[in-house]
Every structure is written in C-alpha cells, then in structure tokens.
C-alpha cells in the first residue's frame, strides 16, 4: 500500500489483515506496480521526483532512482524492464532502466499522463492522459505513440483485460468508464458509473470501479456492460485490484485509512483492514506469495 500522507509503503498480510512491514518512502508515494514474478515493487514519489525500488520479499528498499517532474502512474514491462513512469507535469512518459538507473527515453503523450498499463504480451503501453481527455497507445518496441483514443473527461486509471483485448478507462469528470478496443484503438462503449471514478479492477467477467465521492464501487458485467450492483466501501476509495483467482477485490480507502476486502461474487464487504495514512495504491499492488 502506498500510504501517501504517511510517506511510507505498508505491507499487509491479506490472510490476517495485519500490517507486517512499514517501509519509509519519502515524497508522498502514490503509484505502485509489481514485476510479474512479484520480486520487485516500483513506487513513484510525485513530490520527491523519484522511483523507489523495493525487494518485495525482503520488504526493503534496494534503490531510489532520481527522476524529474511529477512521477505518478507506473507500469513495468512483463519482462521486468523497462519501467514506465508517467510525468504528471509534462506531456511524456519516462522510460526507466532499473538496472542502469537511466532514463532511456521520453515518450510524448497527452497532458498530465496518469494511469499506465502494459498489454500482457508487452507490445503496447497505454497511458490515460488526464488533461487531454485521451488514451495514448504506445508501441513499446519503438517507444512511439501509435494511436490517440478520445475518451471521457479527465481519464485517470486504465486497466487492460487478461487477453489484452480491451482497456477500461475511468473518467473522473464525466463519471463514466470508456471501454476501448485496443487493436482498433477506439472506444466501443461508455458505461455510466458513480461519482468521481478513479480506477477499475477486473475480476472474472466483472469490472469494479472505485467511485471516490460516492464511497462505493460501481460493478458492471464486462460482456453485457450492464450494472450488477454497487458496494459501499470506505471513504475515498482509490486503488483497487482483484486477487489472482478473481474471487476478491481489494480497495484502498484513501480518507478512511482502510483496505476493503470485497467478495467479487456476492458483492459483500468481507473485511476492512486498517492501513497507514492515506493509502492510494494507484496501480498494481497485490502480490501473490508462494
């Protein structure tokens, strides 16, 4: 959990709900992602202009790579490198080699890039460009933008499905989710959700959207795009991600300082765990342990 106001990354054991480590990370940590093998966590500090590298098993900071601007969204290539970091203040994405610690490229995108996601095959990087109302599609082989997809107003979080066919974009100002056909680079549907949607977690055939102002999740079926219900969670829900088996959805409640555990089938809140101060967990933050 990136506990932004607490300047730390908390590690929570989901079986017990206990915080098992609190790792100090300065600069108001916000974005987080994990390598596919779960060995490394990458955390952005927008106020500290840095990318922190955490050994996820040892729960220790192993590196802090100085960056520039306002690092926010973060994603890592399925092969483990490079790491992509959205610069909130610039209209580009930083391509960071975590081994050499170098910024190897700056990919031009729209204004205030926020959420990032890489397709499962690693071929494409998607960037929700908040102040351009667009989703950028980037070829990771060339680091060039190959498509700009107009979406709703102020897109923030972007999530790609397991097959890499569709992307779901949460539009905070228009209170809807744009469903994007990635290959065709176009919006195929727009789904109305609650107030101030932030990110989308996918579990099975369901999409769970964190509605910040409504303190709830809007849930819809990704096949029919029809609503299947709402779930009351904590105050200011932000980051959300499903368990690897798709049975649970974990929601970071930024104001309430809790993590809600939601049953993806019954839509009931099973548990609410305490966290550190200001959990955002903007990105992928659930690590499967052996």
């Amino acid at each position: 959990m990136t506990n932004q106001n607490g300047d730390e990354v908390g590690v929570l054991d989901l079986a017990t709900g206990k915080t098992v480590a609190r790792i100090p990370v300065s600069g108001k940590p916000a974005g987080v992602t994990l390598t596919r093998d779960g060995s490394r966590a990458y955390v952005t500090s927008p106020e500290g202009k840095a990318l922190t590298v955490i050994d996820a098993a040892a729960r220790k900071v192993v590196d802090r790579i100085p960056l520039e601007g306002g690092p926010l969204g973060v994603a890592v290539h399925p092969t483990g490198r490079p790491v992509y970091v959205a610069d909130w203040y610039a209209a580009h994405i930083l391509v960071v080699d975590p081994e050499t610690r170098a910024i190897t490229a700056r990919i031009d995108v729209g204004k205030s890039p926020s959420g990032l996601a890489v397709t499962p095959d690693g071929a494409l990087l998607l960037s929700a460009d908040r102040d351009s109302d667009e989703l950028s599609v980037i070829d990771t082989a060339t680091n060039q933008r190959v498509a700009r997809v107009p979406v709703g107003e102020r897109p923030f979080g972007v999530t790609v499905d397991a097959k890499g066919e569709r992307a779901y974009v949460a539009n905070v100002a228009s209170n809807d989710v744009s469903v994007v056909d990635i290959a065709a680079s176009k919006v195929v549907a727009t789904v109305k959700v609650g107030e101030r949607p932030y990110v989308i977690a996918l579990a099975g055939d369901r999409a769970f959207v964190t509605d910040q102002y409504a303190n709830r999740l809007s849930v819809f079926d990704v096949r029919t795009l029809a609503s299947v219900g709402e779930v009351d969670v904590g105050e200011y829900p932000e980051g959300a991600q499903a368990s690897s088996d798709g049975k649970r959805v974990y929601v970071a409640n930024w104001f309430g300082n809790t993590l809600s555990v939601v049953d993806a089938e019954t839509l009931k809140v099973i548990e609410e765990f305490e966290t550190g101060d200001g959990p955002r967990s903007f990105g992928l933050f659930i690590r499967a342990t052996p």
Partner: protein
Amino acid sequence: MKFHVLAAAAALAVGLAGVAEAHGPTRQKTSKSVEINAAPDKVWAVVGNFQDASWIPIVEKTEGTGGNDKDATRKLTLKDGGAVVEELLTKYDAEKFTYAYRITNDVVKVLPVTNYSSNIVVKGEGDKSTVTWSGAFYRGFPNNDPPPELSDEAALKAVDGLYEAGLKSLKDKVEKGS
C-alpha cells in the same frame, strides 16, 4: 527571475480560469473534532442547516437554494473583503447527523486549496456530542514546485485553522447560546 515569477503567475491563472480541475499530485486531508456539552440533536439544529453557515466565524452571509436536499447550493459571503465561496451539497442524512459538500468555485485568495470536498458529522449521546469536520483538497498551486503561500503546507494550515475556529465557534454557540 522576473520571467520565472511571471510564468508561475500565468500558470496559476490558467489553472484557475480554466477550471480545468488541474491540480497537484498529492491530495491533502485533515479532520478536526470538538466535544460539545449538548445533546446531538441540539448541535445538529445549529450545524445541520446547510443554508445557515453563520456558525463559521468568517462567514458574513449565507444565501442559497434547495434547502437541505442533495444538490442544494449556497453562497457564503465572507467578512473582510467580501469574497464569495460557492458550495454544493452532495450528501445529506438527517438521521445520521451528517452531510457532505464541495466548493465549486476555487477562491485560493481566501482558502488556498482546489478541488475541496468536506463532510461534517455529529455523534454522541445524552448531553455530550462530538462534531467532526473533515476535508480533502489539493493545494492552491496546480503545478510543480509551488510558491510557499500555495503549497501543501499552506493548504493544510488554512483548512486546519478554518476547522478549529469554526468548531470553537460552534461549541460556544451551542453551549452559551451566543
């Protein structure tokens, strides 16, 4: 140097004039409480009317429409300069003694924040109540490296000050009838 200042001012003007909701990357939050020697319904009778913010010391006048229904609006004219803050009621629950609202026109001159949302809740039993006032907001400066008066710290300090003064005034009003 001059250019730097001008550029910063221009960026700020764009951020405000555009109402583009551009903001810094780190939302701030704060929460203040006060204990009042009065029953919750007595406290609610004062604080629970969205159309009367006279318990907040800096408010000169409240004008609005929609009563206490969701989507009601109010305009708070402030003392000392007469700045007007416009607010929207986003949630109202008279049974739980709570409501939530947002500022719809950022006025960073008087409150150096943007994208401000807030809620107030009254809890308690018998003749004791606790009022909690919470807010979430971004600093007044939407871009990187803010000037000190529009920094995260300045935003927090201003809202903390508002809440502390407001809750003290509410306590006085309820307990002393002043």
